[in-house]
């Protein structure tokens, strides 16, 4: 059992959630409530990673941020280490790859808030911030939790992008999914089996909690 790989995966998943969920809230509100030109295009771009092969994203990240690209050189000059084959590079890839999981459930939750409720909040003189904090967020919270859990679980299982932009570096980019692959190649079926079971359990826990939450939602409205 490669504990460092599990910890690394948890850090990557936690970091992705911590960055993506606030961004998701920011993006989901206008998408849920406003109509504007190009909205369909933006929604398509957000959904794109659902169908995009991970290797395609990995390829573009390598091209965009590799040591030979202008962007990669600038980044390395500023930060002092390259973006590819590092944890930071993985985090960036992971955020991009989880955009649909981090935004769509929140958007659906905001869409489900009846317009009358928001109007009532305005009429009672609440500020935008107060209405957001006291009315919108409490009503949308199941969507927020779904987004966080799905993003978290999806990151734990990410493989293709990680292998391409992360390589397989212990303690830096060897996530648990990569460690399983690595152990299988080293004929270490015991460790691979144990880590697979851990990942299976975590994934089931995550998806199970999303479904339990979804089933409880009508009750909390009543």
């Amino acid at each position, binding site marked *: 059992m490669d*504990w*460092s790989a599990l*910890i*690394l995966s*948890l*850090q990557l998943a*936690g*970091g992705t*959630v*911590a960055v993506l*969920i606030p961004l998701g809230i920011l993006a989901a509100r206008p998408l849920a409530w406003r109509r504007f030109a190009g909205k369909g295009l933006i929604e398509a771009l957000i959904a794109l990673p659902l169908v995009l092969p991970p290797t395609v994203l990995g390829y573009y990240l*390598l091209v965009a941020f*590799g*040591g*030979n690209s202008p962007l*990669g050189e600038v980044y*390395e000059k500023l930060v002092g*280490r*390259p973006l*590819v*084959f*590092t*944890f930071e590079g993985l985090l960036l890839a992971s955020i991009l790859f989880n955009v649909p999981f981090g935004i769509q459930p929140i958007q659906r939750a905001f869409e489900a808030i009846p317009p009358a409720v928001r109007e009532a909040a305005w009429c009672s003189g609440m500020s935008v911030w107060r209405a957001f904090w006291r009315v919108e*967020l*409490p*009503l949308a*919270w199941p969507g*927020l*939790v779904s987004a*966080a859990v799905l993003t*978290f679980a999806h990151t734990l299982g990410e493989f293709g992008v990680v292998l391409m932009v992360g*390589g*397989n*570096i*212990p*303690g*830096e980019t*060897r996530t648990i999914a990569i460690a399983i692959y*690595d152990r*299988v*190649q*080293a*004929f*270490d079926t015991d460790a691979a089996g144990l880590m697979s079971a851990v990942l299976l359990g975590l994934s089931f826990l995550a998806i199970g909690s999303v479904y339990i939450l979804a089933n409880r939602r009508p009750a*909390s409205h009543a």
Partner: protein
Amino acid sequence: MPGIARRTLLLFLSGLAAGFSVPMTVHAADAPVIAAASSLNFALADVADLFARETGQTVRLSFGSSGNFVRQIAQGGPFEMFLSADEEYVARLVAQGLTIGRGDVYAVGRIVLFAPDGAPFEPDPEMNGLREAVLSGRVRRLAIANPELAPYGRAARESLMHKGLWDSFKDRLVLGENVSQAAQFATSGSADGGIFAYSLALSPNVAGRGRFVLLPEHLHAPLRQRMVLMRRAGDVAKRFYGFVQQPAAREIFARYGFQPPRPGE
């Protein structure tokens, strides 16, 4: 209820943020990362263990195909030392000015023909059993490493060509991304057989999964395995580089079927 829920979510998010802010590396943070050909999967791990016992210093090993590492290093991969399965890939890095010196040959590798338990052929050095089995259609899949990325895959291809078997097998190959994956395909019985590194066939995890024979050296260009320090190498990596050439390390390599480099190589 929503109030509690909101606080729960905030707690969850702040917990994540806290977890995220702990140091990212859980290994010895400054332990150098060493890129090593997959043929070294077990041998170099033993060498690194011995190195840690004798010096108290650790290295982080990353195994993969030599070709893949050369690409990663050229793209800025953070490796301090590279142990290739051939000389050519090291020469490429030398030509790009990424290395300290031209490196040293640390071992010479051999390949085996492996037949998993229940395979439709008996392995022999002249590959006659394999030939009969493929001509009668009993061998559907032979695992080798990808010749484009892995020197051991190249050696496997040369051996098949040398025996006039390449055309028969061209469409029946299952290519491992590196030689260790090819060995995994073959030993797990996913493929009907495989040609891979002797060092992997001698590893304890492969023992008892099938039968194998060493293929004669003249069937392929010699697998002279060269290592080199990258320009970014620190003291620990330099020390490990020296350690790999010591008799104790040579002895471990010999146990895994590697031959020592000839003087002057």
